[in-house]
């Protein structure tokens, strides 16, 4: 059976979640692997939420917010940008496959773009395979 990645998506209420809605009402197709969690703003997303998702078995986590300059709360996505950029560096240091975590921008009118971004990310994670836990790595070494 082909591996079906489990993707968790944190979508901001004002832009990307609406964009996802638009993709739906436009009958656009995108992989069903993503489980969407609606948040008020991408700035609300603590990277530890992504770690929690990984701990619970997610293979990939994507955060989608408004384009810089268009945040409903003016600044939230600027903070998200800084945090998640440094979180990527952190993942790199720990060898934790930073390709499993992505931050991107999707506006309320970008239904097509939403479908494309999700499809692209799902494929990327599918190619990476299931996320390996430290226990699995240690088990392999025996």
């Amino acid at each position, binding site marked *: 059976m082909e591996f079906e990645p489990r993707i968790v998506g944190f979508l901001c209420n004002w832009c990307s979640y609406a964009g996802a809605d638009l993709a739906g009402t436009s009958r656009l197709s995108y992989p069903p692997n993503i489980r969407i969690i609606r948040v008020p703003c991408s700035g609300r997303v603590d990277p530890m939420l992504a770690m929690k998702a990984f701990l619970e078995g997610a293979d990939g986590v994507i955060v989608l917010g408004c384009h810089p300059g268009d945040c409903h709360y003016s600044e939230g996505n*600027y903070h998200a*940008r800084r945090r998640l950029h440094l979180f990527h560096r952190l993942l790199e*240091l720990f060898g934790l*496959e930073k390709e499993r975590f992505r931050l*991107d921008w999707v506006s309320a009118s970008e239904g097509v773009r939403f479908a494309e971004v999700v499809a692209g990310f799902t494929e990327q994670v599918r190619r990476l395979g299931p996320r390996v836990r*430290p226990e699995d790595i*240690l088990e392999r070494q025996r």
Partner: protein
Amino acid sequence: MSVTDDLRRIARELLESGRVTRVIGYEEGRRGQVRPLVARTVEEAGRLLFDERCARNLALYLLDFKPQGEEEPPAVAVVLKPCDARALNVLVLENQVRREKVYVLGVACPGIPGKPACASCTERIPPTFDLLLGKPEPPPAPAGPDDLSRLLALSPEERRRFWAEQFRRCIRCYACRQVCPMCYCEVCIAEKLDPPWESIAIAPSENEFYHVLRAYHLIGRCIECGECERVCPMGIPVFLYQRYLAEEVRQTFGFRAGMDAETPAPFMTFRKEELEDLP
């Protein structure tokens, strides 16, 4: 007069005059070690000392003197090395400590033998002090390739294996967190239950979560004293990830935590035009 003699004299004066109610410093411990002392009396002040064994970051103990309700917090004096004083600045910036309630007995630091942080440290004088003890000496020559460069030279696979080994060894005693002045959350996310962030299991996955948490929550706040690594009973190189991220913050934002108590940390601010190559 040695630093220790000056320190004792000044501590006695501060306590006698009532300028402070406590002097936080180091004293001779058992078995050739030094240990923290919260001196209350003139007699106890006579036990204070400072020498090259004084590694612990005493800014940590300032958190025990936070205001309770409407009360004014007590005035305390504290012996701080340059790295320790950076911690004080961060605590002041984050409104955990009132600077005017702390009398800083700064020490010009000779470096502590065996402390990993000292190999790359260039601070000789605390960035904040009320009185400076000792004579500043020029910083040491920069060290050669070290553990961090070796780690970064590994492939991502090898790096993940390296950390998996460390997470197997970790027992989540939380000593690294408890010794850090910047970890002052009332309930740490690693221990928050109802609802749980991570489970109570002491196991590699949960340990990974905890170390990533420690690394992430110290971004832009770690003052690189390296005590986290020194206290680990299992020999896990936790300072590696703090040092790496502090360097990233320096390179990306030109910011070093604790050099003063006013400049906002990177996660407190932003610029409209930056990091445009995301995602």
